[in-house]
């Protein structure tokens, strides 16, 4: 691999890691709320959260473009604050976050659902507050499933293409990720370069899935 290609791989991994970290708190909270609480509008929120999984990624990208565009309220505010999003690395992270969030929420939800409510109840009879129950019982017992979900979300972020190209474009050195670079090389007829990057993508995806499955399997054995 060339220096530039290593740079692209590193850039993609860094942004995917940042995206996963940024969605982690909300993903955990949403997964817990869906697994443990009943509230009005729950099924609507659940459907909305899962929407990016089934919508064409470019359609999600177009929505994000409208949402963060200068004509939108959010885009205007960000612009006034001097924060550029569209066609920058931030847009890449936003696209990654939007597309991998459903996988994280699903992983967290399943992980929380697998923790016996009885354990939490008994902890409360022993005098534990809700927060103590969450941090000493629920979270430690769900952690493998949560980590598995995070790794899966990270893998999805690494492979993100459709939404990214809509909101971040494909600007070499600024927004080009691994998936965009492969597409770019094929378009230019540089097949050998494309296959090298393809190899990197396969190795990364395989490793991420392997790790995710390993965590989920160990969680099952609990």
């Amino acid at each position, binding site marked *: 691999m060339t220096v530039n290609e290593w740079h692209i791989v590193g850039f993609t991994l860094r942004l995917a890691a940042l995206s996963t970290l940024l969605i982690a708190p909300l993903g955990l909270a949403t997964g817990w709320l869906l697994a443990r609480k009943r509230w009005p509008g729950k099924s609507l929120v659940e459907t909305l959260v899962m929407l990016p999984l089934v919508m064409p990624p470019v359609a999600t990208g177009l929505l994000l473009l409208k949402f963060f565009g200068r004509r939108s309220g959010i885009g205007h505010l960000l612009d006034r604050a001097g924060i550029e999003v569209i066609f920058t690395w931030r847009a890449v992270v936003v696209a990654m976050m939007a597309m991998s969030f459903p996988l994280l929420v699903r992983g967290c939800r399943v992980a929380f659902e697998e923790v016996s409510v009885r354990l939490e109840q*008994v902890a409360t009879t022993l005098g534990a507050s809700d927060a103590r129950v969450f941090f000493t019982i629920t979270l430690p017992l769900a952690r493998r499933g949560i980590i598995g979900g995070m790794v899966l979300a990270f893998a999805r972020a690494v492979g993100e293409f459709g939404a990214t190209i809509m909101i971040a474009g494909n600007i070499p050195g600024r927004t080009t990720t691994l998936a965009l670079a492969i597409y770019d090389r094929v378009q230019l007829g540089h097949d050998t370069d494309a296959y090298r990057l393809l190899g990197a993508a396969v190795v990364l995806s395989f490793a991420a899935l392997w790790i995710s499955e390993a965590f989920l399997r160990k969680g099952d054995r609990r």
Partner: protein
Amino acid sequence: MRLQFHDVRLPLAHFDLEITAELSGLVTGIFGPSGAGKTSLLDTVAGLRPPRSGRVALDGLVLDDTESGIHIAARHRGIGYVPQENALFPHMTVLQNIRYGASDNPIDHVVDVLEIGPLLGRGVRSLSGGEQKRVAVARALVTSPRLLLLDEPLSGIDRPLQGRILAFLRRIRDDFHLPMLYVTHDSSELAEIAETAAVLDRGRIVAIGRTSEVL
């Protein structure tokens, strides 16, 4: 121990739990067939399932009263609960389980009475059914509860071991003078430990009194 239920109603899957009764005695048995609502009754006393309506009081302390909006949270009730499945925390050692509810309370006496000293450093997954039950009882005892709820404490334990666990529970009754609500579907078990008993059938108490008379 004086546990009062006044017009308590709690919807269950196939019928409502409807109870107006006063239970008293050091060890009170709740006897009835599977699905009679025994565990739901314990859950209500523990504060895990508030009644839809009615009033629950323990020794004069109102735990639930839907009319005046009182519901003391489970964590403030000081009621120990040993569920049928023990619900030991699987990611902790025996000692960590026992210390969970009361990190500063002395545990030596409880550990001695239940003979779990050699188990303290072990993970709970490696314990036998009888050992798990003793640890679950110890975990509840260490918090110095005002009442101990035992849900089918001998279920899932081999016959020869059942007598031993029962002996431990009798020892707790005698050593700690701790009131217990003892749920079972086995009348012979009840006769051995409870002085008073109530028979629960499809959510209603159909008989109440001295164990020997009720059974």
